[in-house]
């Protein structure tokens, strides 16, 4: 490792007016809704009162069904191929929705979708994961390291209509488990 380490810069809230800067046409469509295997991934972002957060942004990044990260350019200028990356702003009720494919795994680990959550009032982005029910999720080492609530908060719910639902609770007893990848000993948020 190098002997000099630079200090990472602080985050700041995405604010209320991010839509025109970060949301581009079809940014919530990782694949066409008509594509084979296309599913709806949706949920509601709620605050500490249980109210929907109408100005949140959910960003996802995931492998395709083959478990491989899409390596092609074209996350903004879409050509119909699977992107792997998407952004969805919440609606006035706090609801977000993506069209995507189920993530797969290439290494035997339980597949998941990486998530970053942003909102007015949220001073830095929060990371979490969306695991897919089934697919060996119960045998995953990270999932097994969590308590029952934490585990449940990271596994999407398979709805009767074939969609996956993943609600994001920012605060309180039912809070979603948010992740830190910072090295131990560093203190980003106090």
């Amino acid at each position: 490792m190098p002997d000099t380490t630079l200090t990472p810069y602080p985050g700041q809230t995405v604010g209320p007016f991010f839509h025109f800067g970060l949301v581009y046409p079809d940014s919530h469509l990782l694949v066409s809704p008509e594509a084979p295997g296309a599913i709806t991934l949706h949920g509601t972002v709620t605050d500490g009162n249980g109210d929907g957060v109408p100005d949140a942004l959910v960003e996802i990044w995931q492998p395709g069904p083959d478990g491989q990260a899409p390596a092609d350019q074209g996350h903004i200028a879409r050509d119909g191929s699977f992107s792997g990356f998407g952004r969805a702003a919440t609606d006035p009720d706090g609801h977000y929705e993506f069209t995507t494919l189920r993530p797969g795994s290439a290494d035997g680990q339980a597949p998941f979708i990486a998530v970053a959550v942003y909102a007015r009032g949220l001073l830095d982005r929060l990371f979490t994961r969306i695991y897919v029910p089934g697919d060996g999720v119960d045998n995953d080492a990270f999932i097994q390291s969590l308590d029952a609530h934490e585990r449940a908060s990271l596994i999407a719910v398979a709805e009767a209509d074939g969609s996956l639902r993943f609600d994001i609770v920012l605060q309180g007893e039912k809070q979603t488990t948010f992740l830190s990848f910072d090295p131990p000993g560093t203190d980003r948020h106090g």
Partner: protein
Amino acid sequence: MSTEPTEQTVDPASAARETQAEISSEIASAHALYNEKIAAGRPPQQGPSLNFPPYRSSLLRHPTKDLRHADPEGIELVSPVFGERDISPVEADLTVQHNGEPIGERIVVRGRIVDADGRPVRDQLVEIWQANSAGRYIHKRDQHPAPIDPNFTGVGRTLTDKDGWYEFTTIKPGPYPWRNHLNAWRPAHIHFSVFGTEFTQRLVTQMYFPGDPLFPLDPIYQSIPDAAARERLIARYDHDITQHEWATGYRWDIVLNGSHRTVFEHDREDGEHA
């Protein structure tokens, strides 16, 4: 139908009427508490406090449970790949996106994006958005009665070069009022969204301008309790970036989290040949 609270339109129940003096006092208390902890030997906090009550909107939107440490896996160890086909070169110049010239002070903002190990972030997407020179956003929910500039949208995108450099030409944004408390004003800022080489390095932040008199009053900027950490978000005036009879220049480098991959010596050396 729920309401749509924004920085500009707060629902009446939470319409804060605190004065700036009260908010400033809360900021001072929070910082005093932080400085006591530092004096007692805790390491500096490099980011904002997610729970920062002077920023009223954070009250119900910060996690109350500790973040769970995780080792990044799979997709988290790589980043989406953006490229030339995703953006047009004109997107790096926010002053030429309309038929006429926008009003305001033309500026060039230039800097280098590296990770905590000093490796340049190459060929990666940088996105910005901002208010116009009068402090007005092109957004339907921005009700600030300042003029919209028909020649300025305030959105830019570019890709870093092989050494991690980015550059935007834009208009210096104005400060604007918001409804956190009575007579609340945000310092002028440009929102930045940056990707690294892995998803764990994702950063959304704000760049500020040197010498802004609103810094001590702003609960968003002051949500970063560490003075040195706050100053990292302030660009510096750079006369070498200033262009003769055209635009003033600002330099703002960005450091992302370290990546979790092995450091190769050539990554560092390449960057230092810039």
